[in-house]
């Protein structure tokens, strides 16, 4: 909270336009004075922070960069160097990124990840937002599925229990969201429906799922679902985790979308009714486009949270990025490099999540051009 505006506020209106800009904004010293030393306690805070940064940053930099082993080297070299051991990441990168996927076939998950990122990249561009995009996703998804599972076109089959690392994390997140998003919209509409039975079912489902931790839902999908199926009918483990994730994400997305729906003025509904539109036309053409636009920031937040939550599948024994990193740490000759392993995957997660939040801000800016004053 600043009180610098209080001093010159009264004169401002009288001399509007005749004053030269104040000198503070022109020089480096002026900037320092305005932003770091504008009163005694801010000066103290600044000095304390500078001291802290001076104490912390050099050792961290030394560990991360200057003392680190950047090239492939045996672990003994690392232990002698005293800095970060990026040689460990060299050695284990493929295990961390692709888990237990057969070593000779790892071009397949690599290609799948590229394809998936390409699809996501294309979806980010509003120029491509049309029916072709959905078709591209269906085709791309099929190709990715065939690549990962094999068994076609002479690719040796790979069981899902061998899937792991980045493709699993990305796959669980994107497929989860792609399915959960429409389900969430339907749930949100159902919760605002005038039909009591439909509304009740939706409310009970949403509140039940939102009231329990994701772990219990994953336990349920991994342990209990099989008991509810007839003998001999099995659902694949990865798919079961995926179902659990979808159930979880759809309930949260439903609430976000419902928030957007509530913000649409009733006049919009009435206008659509008076044009003689049916319920689905009204929703598809008038209400949902506006509601979804309003909800972009919370939707992206839900996406980010969901992407981070995929790491929980390690608890039900799947090897996602975190799980694969942990299994890389079990190699006795490389044990103890947990800082490097965790740092490596933390950076991967950070890049993805940070990019998502940046994109959400960008989208908000471009979509709101029409209403910006």
């Amino acid at each position, binding site marked *: 909270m600043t*009180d610098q505006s209080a001093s010159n506020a009264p004169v401002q209106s009288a001399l509007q336009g005749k004053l030269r800009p104040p000198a503070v904004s022109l020089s480096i010293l002026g900037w320092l004075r305005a932003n*770091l030393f504008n009163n005694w306690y801010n000066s103290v805070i600044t000095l304390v922070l500078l001291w802290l940064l001076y104490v912390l940053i050099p050792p961290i930099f030394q560990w991360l960069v200057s003392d680190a082993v950047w090239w492939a080297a045996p672990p003994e070299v690392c232990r002698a160097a005293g800095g970060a051991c990026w040689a460990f990441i060299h050695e284990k990168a493929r295990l961390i990124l692709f888990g237990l996927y057969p070593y000779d076939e790892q071009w397949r998950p690599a290609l799948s990840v590229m394809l998936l990122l390409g699809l996501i990249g294309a979806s980010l561009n509003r120029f491509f937002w049309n029916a072709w995009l959905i078709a591209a996703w269906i085709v791309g998804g099929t190709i990715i599925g065939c690549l990962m599972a094999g068994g076609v076109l002479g690719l040796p089959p790979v069981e899902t229990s061998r899937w792991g690392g980045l493709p699993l994390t990305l796959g669980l997140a994107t497929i989860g969201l792609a399915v959960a998003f429409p389900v969430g919209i339907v749930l949100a509409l159902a919760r605002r429906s005038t039909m009591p039975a439909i509304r009740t079912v939706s409310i009970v489902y949403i509140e039940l799922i939102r009231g*329990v931790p994701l772990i219990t839902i994953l336990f349920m999908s991994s342990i209990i679902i099989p008991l509810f199926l007839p*003998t001999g009918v099995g659902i694949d483990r990865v798919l079961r985790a995926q179902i659990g994730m979808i159930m979880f994400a759809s309930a949260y997305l439903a609430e976000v979308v419902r928030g957007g729906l509530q913000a649409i003025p009733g006049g919009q509904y009435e206008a659509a009714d008076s044009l003689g539109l049916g319920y689905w036309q009204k929703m598809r053409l008038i209400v949902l486009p506006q509601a979804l636009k309003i909800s972009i920031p919370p939707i992206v937040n839900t996406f980010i949270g969901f992407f981070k939550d995929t790491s929980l599948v390690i608890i039900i024994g799947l090897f996602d990025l*975190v799980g694969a990193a942990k299994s890389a740490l079990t190699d006795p000759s490389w044990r103890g490099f947990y800082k490097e392993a*965790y740092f490596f995957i933390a950076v991967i997660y950070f890049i993805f999540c940070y990019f998502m939040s940046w994109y959400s801000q960008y989208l908000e800016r471009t979509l709101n051009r029409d209403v910006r004053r």
Partner: protein
Amino acid sequence: MTVETHPHRAPIPKGRWLYDARVRSVLYQTLLVVILVAVGWYLISNLLVNLERQNIATGYGFLDREAGFEISESLISYGAADSYGRAFIVGLLNTFQVAILGIVLATILGTLVGIMRLSSNWLLAKVSAVYVEIMRNIPLLLQLFIWYAIITVSMPSPRAALQPFTGLVLSNRGIQMAVPAADPIHPWMWAGLLIGIGLAIGIKIWAKRRQDATGQPFPVALTAAGVIIGLPLAIWVLGGAPTEMSIPELQGFNFRGGRTISPEFAAVLFGLTFYTAAFIAEIVRAGILAVSYGQTEAAAALGLRSNMIMRLVVLPQALRIIIPPTTSQYLNLAKNSSLAVAVGYPDLVSVGNTTLNQTGQAIEAISIFMAVYLSISLSISAFMNWYNKHIALVER
């Protein structure tokens, strides 16, 4: 909301009754209920067949049986001879312990960081922004693993423990602190504390009434602090001022005596606190920014000082915006405490898992988890809704 009422509905042509909205509404709902019942019946019948055919025991009878496993930390007395039911309660209390502490600490830290992000000090604002971004964009589970690794791998063994001063021991067995040795006066001091808090609330209400009536402000904060600290202190002095301390000492493998914060508990608590604080910081920042600047200017025009402006004008208004999203963060924290299972803190899920493995009663154990977390979630929601109503703007 739209209500589809058509008082002047045109008569429906014959054979077109299916296009009547009311008929359709009934039809859709019936269909949904039928589908749900059919699917539910199908699943349940499968379950019963499976349980029957494989001879799997069912029911909650196992809760009375002897558990046979030890739990590393417990707020109530518990031993391997106790029942599974008691083990569950131990786990539940551990969950409460970490969740409540986490909520308190995350609120304090989050509010602080949120205000720091708005500081006119550029460096402070940037440092807090970096903190928030890092915490928000890395999965909590990974953060828990990192905390646990930091505590267990980088701390020395008990024999080489760090002792910054007598009474505080840091090792890979956790943080051990000296605490006052047990004394009969302690329960009375707790009672004194509770009475003190009650008195403080009373003083606040009285002061508000007096200020409304006379306009005289009363130094509530000081008096309240005095009462809350003073009463237990007075009781302690009356009880003969026992000063004996229980100091952690190395005996055999581990330190005995004092109060121990285990690495598992510390990892979960730090993880939950730092992670949730980042989200609360963003909420606080948005809430403060949402209070229009005119309010601050108006308060300044009335001659209030900047800390008074914050306390009396900005924060009360910001709170209305802050509370609902903060509630959901509290709920998230309570639910996220279930991740404790990954680092071995014996919370409800961890104890429940062990029970599930020993007894094979998967459905029962998981139904207990769900029931407990649902109750926690619903109570927090209910309390926060009440509080929301309590401070809501009274439109005149």
